């Protein structure tokens, strides 16, 4: 909105300072600050509101509230995240950009699925009775299909030549340019990445910080790849307009930091599936739009490891082999099993995520 107001008014001398609104850097900073402040202001109210409506984490087995466990903490903090990021983007993004619209749609769509799931758990008064797995996948698949359809259509925000290309980190040229491979791959990628954060979200502050790292790195990629000079210098495909993703990423990082304010151990609010799925959806769409799908293995290495360990343990170990393949899964539970306190597990995994984010950033130059 501010982008348009700036465009409209900047020619008038009195509003010439609104030229700033055209610069990605200033809009990104604005988006981040708006998001942080808005989150800090609104979250206490949301905590109160969620508590009132009994949208709190459900006790699993016993009915007695314990002094040690976390049942009773308001859940669905993801609503704040999604709401604030959307508001900040409406203010600071160029809403005519397909990049911004697609990533916002991805976030809201996945967030909505998470919201319904969270609500089902609240209604059933059980942490185990959310939306059924196939139903969730179906709704997520619908979005993935929509995204693929847009990317394959003439309305794709990407340059036509790039539409079906697959890039790998460290390689200057695309390795594959085959729509029959690429689009099914994107479909699966969105489903897998979209759900990976959900599994990571199991300890206070564990999901939000690595998410902020990851989305920030993607924001940097968006800024550089949307810039003709930088993209040529770094041997990346030039994606005109991808800079809007930097604004989105800033808003997201701001909201994430604001959320951490309350979510840090011991948490006053959880993000719930609403939060984790919306983060997953945003990361997935942003990676696809920036042609950095393969980079996600490094960038979101933590999410990948968490999801992988959990799936291997459950599907191969417990269901097929009738034994545990890891002592515990996902990763953060394995660390807790080894005797680490929750706070320590979280900080260690932040460090790991930070290293992975830096490594992902380093691939910019290592080509």
């Amino acid at each position, binding site marked *: 909105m501010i982008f348009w107001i700036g465009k409209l008014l900047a020619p008038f001398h009195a509003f010439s300072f609104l030229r700033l609104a055209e610069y990605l850097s200033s809009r990104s900073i604005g988006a981040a600050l708006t998001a942080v402040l808005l989150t800090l202001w609104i979250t206490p109210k949301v905590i109160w509101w969620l508590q009132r409506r009994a949208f709190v984490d459900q006790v699993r087995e016993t009915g007695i*509230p314990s*002094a040690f466990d976390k049942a009773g903490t308001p859940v669905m903090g993801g609503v704040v995240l999604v709401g604030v990021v959307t508001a900040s983007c409406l203010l600071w993004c160029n809403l005519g950009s397909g990049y911004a619209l697609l990533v916002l749609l991805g976030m809201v769509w996945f967030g909505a699925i998470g919201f319904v799931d969270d609500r089902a758990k609240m209604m059933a008064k059980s942490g185990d009775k959310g939306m059924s797995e196939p139903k969730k996948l179906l709704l997520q698949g619908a979005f993935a299909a929509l995204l693929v359809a847009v990317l394959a259509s003439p309305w794709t925000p990407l340059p036509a030549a790039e539409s079906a290309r697959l890039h790998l980190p460290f390689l200057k040229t695309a390795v594959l340019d085959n729509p029959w491979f690429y689009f099914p791959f994107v479909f699966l990628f969105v489903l897998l990445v979209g759900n990976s954060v959900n599994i990571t979200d199991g300890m206070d502050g564990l999901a939000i910080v690595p998410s902020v790292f990851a989305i920030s790195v993607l924001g940097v990629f968006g800024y550089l790849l949307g810039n003709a000079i930088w993209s040529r210098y770094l041997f990346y495909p030039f994606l005109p307009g991808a800079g809007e993703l930097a604004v989105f990423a800033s808003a997201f990082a701001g909201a994430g930091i604001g959320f951490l304010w309350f979510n840090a151990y011991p948490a006053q609010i959880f993000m719930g599936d609403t939060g984790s799925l919306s983060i997953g959806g945003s990361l997935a769409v942003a990676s696809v739009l920036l042609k950095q799908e393969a980079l996600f293995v490094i960038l979101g290495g933590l999410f990948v490891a968490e999801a992988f360990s959990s799936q291997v343990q459950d599907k191969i170990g417990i269901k097929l082999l009738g034994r545990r393949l890891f002592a515990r899964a996902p990763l953060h539970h394995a660390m807790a099993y080894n005797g*680490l306190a929750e706070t320590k597990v979280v900080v260690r995994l932040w460090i790991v995520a930070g290293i992975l984010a830096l490594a992902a950033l380093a691939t910019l130059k290592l080509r």
Partner: protein
Amino acid sequence: MLQNPAEARRLKTGTRILLTGGGTAGHVNPALAIGAALAEPGSEVLFVGVKGRAEEQVVPREGIPIHFVRASGFPGARPSPAFVRFLLDLAVGTAQAAATLLRFRPDVIIGTGGFASAPVIFAATFLKKLRLSKARVFVHEQNAVPGKLNRLVGRYAEKVFVTFPETLSLFPGNGALTGYPVRKRIGHVAPEEARARLDFTVPEGRTVVFVFGGSQGSRSLNRGLVDALGDLMPHAGRLFVVHGTGLFKGGGYDAEADTAARLATRYTEEERARIATFYLSRSYFHDIASVYALASLVVIRGGSGSLNEVARMGIPALVVPKANLPGDHQVANARALERAGGAEVIYEETVLSDGRLVEVLDGARLARRILALAEDPVRRADMSKKGRDVLGIDAAAEIAHHVRHGRASTVIDPTLVPAPTVVSNAALLSRLEKAAAAAGRSYRVEDVVEPRDLAWFRSRAASLLVHDEWEARNLGVKLLGLLDGTEKVPLLLALLADRTPAPLLQRLLGGDFAQVGFVRRNVYTALARLDVVDAGVEEALLAGFTDPYWEVRAEAARTAARFAGRLARHVEIVAALGKGLCDRNLEAAAAAAEALGTLGGERDALPALLALADYRFWKVRAAALRGVLSLVERGEVRDREKLKQALPGFLLTSTDFRPQFEMKLSYRRVLEALSRGQEAS
């Protein structure tokens, strides 16, 4: 109430009746009986069944034309070739049935279950939706637990006729109790006439017990009866046992020959001569009505057909239901009649013999139950009356009444309809687990399960131990532990001893044996619960300490700790636990350390535990300290000063802590105070 639309549609002459149901005679006969009751002069009857099954022979003999459709039994909804074939058969069968329906244009369709009826009912429902058929669809369920297809198909039927009141709750809205339609073959014979008609004589004044496992016979019943004869011998003067062994031959079992051989090996010639004075066996009775006429008591299987037959004739029954059938329907049938007061139930035991399930009926127990009933004419008279009351309805006529008038001929008080009595294994497990979690160490299975059900539950759980799927075996293991199935310990140990390797693919993925890790681990959990210590168990413990799966090693160590003070191979076990301290897995190492503390002494355990002072994982260090504590508490440590000097060597940094949230603590205290007040008032 009188404006029942069904009433307006009274059957006229020329009604076209389509009967379907089959696979086994148990489904075909009721269909034929209903057909006979419905048919009037001028009506046309057609039977639809599956080729190569019982109906192919039985139906033409009755002079009823038969059409065939494709169908196969439901193999379970999981991706398998059998499931694909089932779907294909269902699709093709439904198409064939639709063609038949369009040609025959029936007014009434009666389905009696079995997979043969599924395509017909599906096709009929489909055609009705398209307004291509006006047929009214009815279903009859013979067993207390309906088959899967009848349960599904029952939703689309105008009415579901059920045999046992227990079943009504599964068909809310359209269920109707009618009983079991018996074909009018077995008439009533007066005892004098029966004596004249039979080719053997029963001495005067004897109570006749008719033991009969169906036309094919039942192995466990036959063998159990032979074993029981010895205990019945002292009562020879008052009893007469008539035994129908059945015609079964094949699969290594010949009903008649096996019975004769068992008699010959179990009893001396002298004993056999005595037995002959009160025992008579035949492979088959052509004039079964006459045998029934003389019988004061029958011992039978739990098939719906035979149960209904004897109940209608007012003969009290001792029922030996066959275990492990789909939905445990024989058990459900038997219990339904038992509940009504018309029968008593005696359960077989399922035991393993050469890795195969064998059902065994304990002869002594059978003899006791036969005698108790044989010598209690008052009870028998009562059972006879109650059995007739509940199952003595003329079912075929009642069904015909329903079809013609749209309602029952008599009204049943709905409050008298009992709930189903059979619990699934999974439901039983969750009930037991909940009780065990709530009661802790004071858990007693008798508080949760009715004592008379225990034997059946245990036998059912034991039969799961040879199931193809490990999930089922696992369920069986857990159940046996919680059901206090002490006598099944050898079966559990056999699972541990079974070292058949898992399929190659699973081994490549990290599997080891066909008896998967969870099964083995849970065997140890069950052993700890069963609290049996014998040579076999100790052998298993020693093997468990070196199992390739860490959860098994940990559980074996915990189990050993529970048996403290009762282990004969104590020294060996302590030595093995000492080695277990070096386990790669911290849980197994910790469990070994704790067990060592409970089992060992100053010489064999203390140094090893102190050596863990700077172990990498604090959980193992903590377990070692707990072990040391238990050594001290048990008075095993004499040189206390030396231990005091050694203790500071323990690396005490720990990276875990337990948070305590003031807010929640206060909240919980308020709740606790409130509930205390409640108890006091």
